[in-house]
């Protein structure tokens, strides 16, 4: 990240400005991915007028980065109208989509509207594996065609690849495909629980052995395993004073029904924009204030863990596990997979060998 961007983020946190908002415009979807954390019904989505008003409120509040997603955002036939309005208000707009509805015309429209980036989920370079995950035959071909159309329009495309048990062998193929098509590729080795709390989806996660292999791959780590997988250094005061992440500090999430959460992966109900103004929720919500009060040293278990400085701990996953100040076992697993050193949480849960069982 450039030093200017870093300075901008730090300033936003310091001033308490919601620099980034992730807005899901619908939970409806035309795929049925096996690992999806959402229900795909329509329970009364925000109308075009409501979104229009919300966009103005967000611009006034200082929101700069707007991510539009879902479900599948292109199922809203006012999506382009929404993007157009967001661009008139000079948001930097990122679109997350499965892209099976994006053909040449849509790619040109997305480009003309000045969308900054399009992120598309690709589960494998092999159609049979990808389509078995999305449950739509032909979806990989359609998504890849869309990537070609978008890239040919000069748009930045990111392939988001989630690794689970059934596609665990395919991430090198996906990375190669991304390189070939001129797209970035990000890899995420964990499945999130359902937004309603049901943890059944977690059984789709790959095995610990596979995770270890993945977390030693330089192509995934983005660097030398000798560096990333080394035993963690002792935590400094700065590490303990650090924020868990930007959720609630300079970023938040809004659902298609107007519910505000710190993050899509941190579904703590913090207010609803149908009942209150966005800025009032951002500033005065007791839930967001509580989230903002937490520093790493306030976490009873994690503050004493060797991994506290380098762990990828997601407070949202911790919240879904039962305690927003508690550990996120999925992230303990990742730290363990990288370094071979189990966290106190893992030992306590009996997930790894260690003393005191």
């Amino acid at each position: 990240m450039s030093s200017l961007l870093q300075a901008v983020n730090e300033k936003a946190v310091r001033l308490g400005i919601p620099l980034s908002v992730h807005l899901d415009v619908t939970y409806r979807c035309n795929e049925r991915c096996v690992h999806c954390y959402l229900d795909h019904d329509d329970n009364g989505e925000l109308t075009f007028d409501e979104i229009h008003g919300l966009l103005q409120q967000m611009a006034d509040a200082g929101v700069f980065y707007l991510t539009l997603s879902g479900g599948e955002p292109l199922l809203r036939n006012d999506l382009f109208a929404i993007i157009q309005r967001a661009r008139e208000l000079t948001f930097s707009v990122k679109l997350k989509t499965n892209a099976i509805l994006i053909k040449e015309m849509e790619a040109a429209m997305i480009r003309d509207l000045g969308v900054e980036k399009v992120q598309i989920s690709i589960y494998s370079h092999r159609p049979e594996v990808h389509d078995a995950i999305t449950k739509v035959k032909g979806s990989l071909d359609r998504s890849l065609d869309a990537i070609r159309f978008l890239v040919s329009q000069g748009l930045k495309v990111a392939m988001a690849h989630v690794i689970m048990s059934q596609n665990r062998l395919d991430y090198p193929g996906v990375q190669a495909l991304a390189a070939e098509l001129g797209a970035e590729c990000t890899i995420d080795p964990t499945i999130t629980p359902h937004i309603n709390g049901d943890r059944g989806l977690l059984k789709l996660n790959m095995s610990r052995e596979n995770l270890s292999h993945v977390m030693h791959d330089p192509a995934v780590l983005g660097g030398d395993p000798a560096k990333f997988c080394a035993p963690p250094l002792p935590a400094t005061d700065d590490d303990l004073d650090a924020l868990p992440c930007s959720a609630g500090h300079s970023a938040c999430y809004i659902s298609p029904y107007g519910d505000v959460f710190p993050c899509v992966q941190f579904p703590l109900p913090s207010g609803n924009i149908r009942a209150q103004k966005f800025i009032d929720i951002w500033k005065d919500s007791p839930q967001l204030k509580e989230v903002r009060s937490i520093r790493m040293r306030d976490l009873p278990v994690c503050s004493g863990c060797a991994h506290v400085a380098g762990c990828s701990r997601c407070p949202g996953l911790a919240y879904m596990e039962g305690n927003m100040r508690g550990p996120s076992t999925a992230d303990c697993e990742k730290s363990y997979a990288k370094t071979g050193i189990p966290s106190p949480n893992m030992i306590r849960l009996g997930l790894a060998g260690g003393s005191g069982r």
Partner: protein
Amino acid sequence: MSEKYIKPSRDIAARMLDDEMIVMSVRDSAVYSLNATASVIWGAADGSTPLREIVASKVVPQFDVEPEIAYQDALDLVEALAREGILVVADHPIKQQDSA
């Protein structure tokens, strides 16, 4: 000297963050920070108000600077932003660009 007219390029994102304007070119994702004076000029860049007038009516009173120096600095600024592709600078008023 002819009048200069300025208007933000269509393919940008922008937001005031306290006293600076953050501008991003959506094509290459380059990010810029405009200081207080530059932000005032950017905010007044409607394509129809001459730069000279923007400087005289907004910059000079707010920042208590010499008008000629302020105008020269403003010219340098807008030309630099034009080179980066984030601001359109012309010798004639700039019409409303069509939306997609």
